[in-house]
């Protein structure tokens, strides 16, 4: 599965704080890293099953987790981007 650059940034960001972040923290983190704020969308990753939400008692926003599929895609994309020796 091919992710565009912006989706990859979002996926990596969620992964870096896996289960410890919500859309607000992620958005604040990536807003200026994306090509445009218009690229700030979670639904492509949610719909593709790469990340998922889980509710936590006492917190108004669901937390975000990278799924096993998401980790696999992330590993593949990262491997593809790593220059070979």
């Amino acid at each position: 599965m091919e992710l565009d650059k912006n989706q990859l940034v979002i996926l990596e960001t969620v992964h870096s704080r896996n289960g410890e972040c919500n859309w607000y923290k992620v958005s604040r983190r990536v807003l200026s890293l994306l090509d445009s704020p218009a690229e700030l969308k979670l639904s492509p990753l949610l719909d593709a099953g790469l990340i998922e939400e889980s509710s936590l008692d006492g917190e108004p926003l669901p937390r975000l987790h990278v799924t096993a599929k998401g980790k696999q895609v992330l590993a593949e994309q990262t491997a593809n981007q790593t220059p070979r020796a």
Partner: protein
Amino acid sequence: MCPQIVQAAGESASSGEYPSQTGGGNAGNNQNTYNPTETLDDDWLLPDEANRREDSGLLDLTPESAFNKMVSDPMFRAMLEQFLRNRATWPDPDVMSDKSIWDSCMQLYWRVKFHQTLSAAEKARFESSLNGATEDKRTPLCDHWVFWFAPESVRLFVLAPEAAAEIAQQRSARAALVGKLASADSKAHYRALMDMYRSGKYTNEMLNSTAGVYGEHFLAVLGVPLKGTQLAKEAVENVGGLASGVNKVDNVPRGARGPATAWDGFYEALAGGPVRDLTTGRVKIQGNGIDVVERHLARFGPDKANSVMVQRLRDIADGKITATAQDLNFYTHELREFVRYRRLGWRNGVPGNADAATDLWRQTHSATLDDYGFPLQADDLLYHPDALKFLWE
């Protein structure tokens, strides 16, 4: 919002743009002219919106008529087009089918225009009116045509052929368009310069040689009337060698939109109103304002960086510490952002859909950044170093 808070956020309390909390905005002006019980059930409105309604006229109509009136409203069409163009990263951006786009647009339209929340029952009635169609129906709403497929109410958005070429041209010419917009206002020039400088894309050497895509604007930037202003101070501190040339003109153009909102998909109507030209100059951090900040931030959940900043504000109000630029920036930013949320109908909470929630935030957040002349990358301007280190925890 009480008058003190409005003033603290750099607004005039008597401007009329920011209604009192009890008045409920423009809705309050017409409360006596609308009786929802005459034609509709109470479930058309959520309980917390019941005292904030406006005489829209739509609610007096049948769902079908209200639907037709809504889709004929230029504001709704503009919003829908904006939603659709925001989805330009789809595999085929010109042909798309997504029920959530329509639902999100409809919901936002009602919030922006009538300060009301569509209840589930109300949405269902609109759904029902759509399902009543006996055959496929094409509606040229905006630059996209919308096809309705009964009875499932599948929406297929297809870019109208005559709009395709124009949109393609707009996309390819985006950089040039941004440049033209910047040319219209020297303050925008300055903001563009500062944004690029802060992001590390341009060094002093590059600025001095006026190299790069925006090079032709840099000389104009030097003519920005900055003497004695906050911008001048920033220029002296940040641009160094350029500072000697910045005090040439006397009048600062006001009200222009800067880089924080110079992106396709930003829409002032979705951001709770026009971008203003505000400063933190006469702001006093007060307890009631901090309460509003705290309540606004609560909707985003626990956040260490925000907590540190709120505690700093409390300490400042108690006279324990002195306010820094970041404290004033954070305070005014959150108050102003709250105003924008509230004007869009979100006094508390956020949309349940992640995309709708992020869209609401990015629109209001970037507009608020621009209200105070900040670029998109403004973490170090909004968060004191004591809080900045917790920004991603």
